[in-house]
């Protein structure tokens, strides 16, 4: 087993190194940040331009830049933002709490609603409930989140004033004070609901189809024939097995959510890492862009490795491959 775990972790590290090289190289192809910082109203002063390149470390060979970058990145030091002129890790850590709060709340909302709804739809196959559930799933997956978010903000926030329309409230950093908890929850509500909508729909569809397959299996029928209660059949025998693909999907989805969503952060004025990445790309802030993409890759690869290892734990056939 340990051999398997080490092999998967090694593969993850190699993937991450390859990703870092691709990201570093491709970001450098998008334009010259020293050139971007040159004032447009003034003559292009080659001396200033060269000095700016030197200040940014861009006068060194590409491979040297990459080597220095990767050596520092291992220790969560992604260099200094060209535009904001602050350490990237500091900028990311400042924005990360907002992203993590929103991602976790939206994700758990989706899990807690999506899984029971999916199971319920499968159990009540072709009933009104199932049809409504399928309708909800189609809507959740098809409706543009941007549009849904704006509609809810305008209606539930602007018109009915049930929820705040923007921001996180007074909380800064990871933890709210006791007094800030109700306000923090209130601010989380609307973005979490919108974020959860499409994830809930996907989880529900997945849970439903997996559950249908399980309910048709021989061992479930056998359990029913044995006279076990419906509750026991559904939860102990069927649902447990049906949830494996759902959790796999959930893991990857959570990794995506932890990378921040530019759309959500724009619409809800949510100060997360997504907007930081957008700023990095539009302003040719290489270190910022590289760090954001690398972290995103890190989250995905870690999740994939954890899922693979979990599969290996529960299924010996996977370990043997």
């Amino acid at each position, binding site marked *: 087993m340990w051999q398997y775990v080490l092999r998967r972790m090694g593969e993850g590290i190699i993937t991450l190194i390859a990703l870092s090289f691709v990201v570093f190289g491709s970001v450098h192809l998008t334009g010259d940040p020293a050139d971007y910082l*040159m004032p447009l*109203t003034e003559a292009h002063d080659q001396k200033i331009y060269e*000095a700016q390149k030197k*200040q940014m470390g861009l006068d060194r060979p590409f491979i040297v830049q990459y080597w220095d970058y990767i050596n520092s990145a291992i220790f969560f030091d992604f260099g200094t933002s060209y535009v904001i*002129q602050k350490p990237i890790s500091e900028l990311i850590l400042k924005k990360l709490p907002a992203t993590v709060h929103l991602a976790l709340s939206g994700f758990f909302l989706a899990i807690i609603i999506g899984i029971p709804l999916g199971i319920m739809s499968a159990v009540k196959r072709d009933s009104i409930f199932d049809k409504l559930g399928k309708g909800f799933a189609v809507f959740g997956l098809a409706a543009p989140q941007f549009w849904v978010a704006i509609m809810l903000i305008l209606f539930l926030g*602007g018109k009915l*004033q049930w929820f705040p329309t923007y921001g996180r409230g007074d909380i800064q950093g990871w933890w709210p004070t006791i007094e800030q908890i109700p306000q923090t929850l209130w601010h989380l509500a609307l973005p979490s609901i919108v974020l959860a909508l499409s994830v809930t729909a996907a989880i529900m569809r997945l849970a439903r189809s997996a559950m249908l397959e399980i309910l048709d299996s021989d061992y479930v029928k056998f359990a029913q024939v044995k006279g076990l209660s419906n509750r026991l059949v559904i939860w102990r025998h069927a649902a447990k097995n049906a949830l494996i693909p759902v959790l796999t999907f959930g893991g990857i989805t959570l990794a995506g959510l932890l990378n921040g969503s530019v759309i959500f952060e724009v619409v809800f004025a949510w100060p997360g890492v997504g907007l930081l990445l957008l700023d990095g790309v539009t302003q040719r802030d290489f270190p910022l862009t590289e760090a954001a993409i690398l972290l995103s890759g890190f989250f995905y690869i870690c999740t994939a490795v954890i899922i693979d290892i979990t599969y290996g734990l529960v299924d010996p056939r996977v370990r043997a491959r």
Partner: protein
Amino acid sequence: MKVSRIFSVKALLTIAMLSALTVGIVACGGSDTSESSSSASSSAAAAPTAAPAAAAATETESTSSDERITVLIADLEEERVFPPLAGGPDVKYLRVFMDDMFSTMGGGNLVPGIVNKWEVSEDGTTWIIDVTTDKGIKFHNGDPLTVNDVMVSLQQERDPELATAWAEAGCMNVTETAYIKYTKSLDFGPGDDQITYAQNRVALNFPFNFSQSSQDEKGLLLPGKFTMDMWDAAKGKENNMDCFEEFEENPVGSGPFKLANYELGIKYSFDRNDDYWFTKANGFTEDRIPQVGGIDMEVILEPSTRLAALQSGEADLIEANMNIVPTIDANDEHSVFWQEENSMLWMIYIDCWEEDMWCFQKDARQALQYGTDTRAIQEALYGKGATHEGHGWATSNALGYSSDLDGFPYDPAKAAELWASAGLDDSLVFKVWTWEAGSFPFLPQVAELMAADWKKSVGITVDIEIGDQAAIKQQWNNRSLPGDMLIRDNEARYDGTSITTGHYCNHDARWRVNEPETADGAARCDKIKELALNHVVTGQEQHDNFNAAYKFIKDESMHWGPFYSNVPWGAGERVANYEPWKLVPYFTAPWTISLK
């Protein structure tokens, strides 16, 4: 099988409670200390003195309130709080708590303020300015204003020694030193509280560029001693991006509000400066003591979210746009205040200085203007959100404007005639580049409508490329788009000296529309210099000279711009009045905001 019974109401309620609990778990925990900063409190009020002779009094009825208001703005540059490290749009919040060296009444109307007198040498290169030290002007940390504060503020951008030292130490980007090459000398004197600034070029626009009406942060007044103390502490360190961190932790201005705390790029809280010096009693042109207790300014990119916040009462004043103005207007308790002449529309024939290019010929360049129904486009897309006057940066209140600078009339027949006389037919294809601009909405739609007009008038089909602003600018500046057209926005400004010079007489200016190193380009530049740029005059004479130059520029048509945008500010039910300045971009005149 009756498995459905297990999904009882009780079960559903349990699920709902679990959901709520999960959200709660995510949000709960201990406490975290804010990273925001706080400013020092200001001290004694300024002593009233005699009004400066040039001052023209403006009566403002004050209905002062201690209530705070929430202002939502559309965007920021989101750089550092210390002005030399900030970007142009950051003046949206910087000017709320900082003053500029030169005060204005908006537009080009300079009035005595931190600098109370300014005079230029006969050759237009040297300025002597008098700093106001006898009116009790104080920074928010209690330091009284001295001539040294103005000197340091100028030095950080214009002094070869200091600016270079800052850049070499890594305190700011090297590119920030681009302007030091124009400095001949920068000295105290000749009299007390005077500074003499000599440049190696004619610089009649110096006071405007360092004023409240300029479109960037270069004129903002730094607390000199505080700044130099920070620099002394940072000296000798290499690659030190935090030289001025202390300012960022304790931002000090001398403006109408004090910056109490902030989250960079997210929100900024200001408290009223009750001791603000710009008052009639202190001899200045009007009372600029704020009429609200404080401003909480937040950055909200999405207009619909700003609108919803206004509707819910979470915001009192929002930077609106034409799409949401009808909804604001529909609410009887809400109102719209217009900030006129905010941005200009700017149509550029890119790099049309090679003889074999279609746009080398003036007839072709003019044909497309005659062939565009610009008034119809402005009315269809913008209504009151834009005004159909002016030519590029010569907007209706700018230096040199007259109504004969307004765009060519729509005349498809004339367009076709000019097009044919340029030897062109409907087979010509070029690209029109544009982007989605926050300050000037609907640029892609403008491009679409213009393209439709050109199809009708001269028969051509153009390809419209809507892309990333930075990427398009980079291609344009690297001379990669010759013969194409760019439709873009830019900040309106009163004094167009810099932009005119850069566009027509500077071979190295990357956004030039004229190539002064070619015969045609040199002739064009010489003409503009002869008409306006070479004359060391002010007032009406300067206005007339620029008017003549702009008429020539309009006729040459290397660029054009038939209308400019006006920015609507949506106000909630608590706001009685707001008078944003015209011809000055970004958030202006916060002291005019009053509550009901």
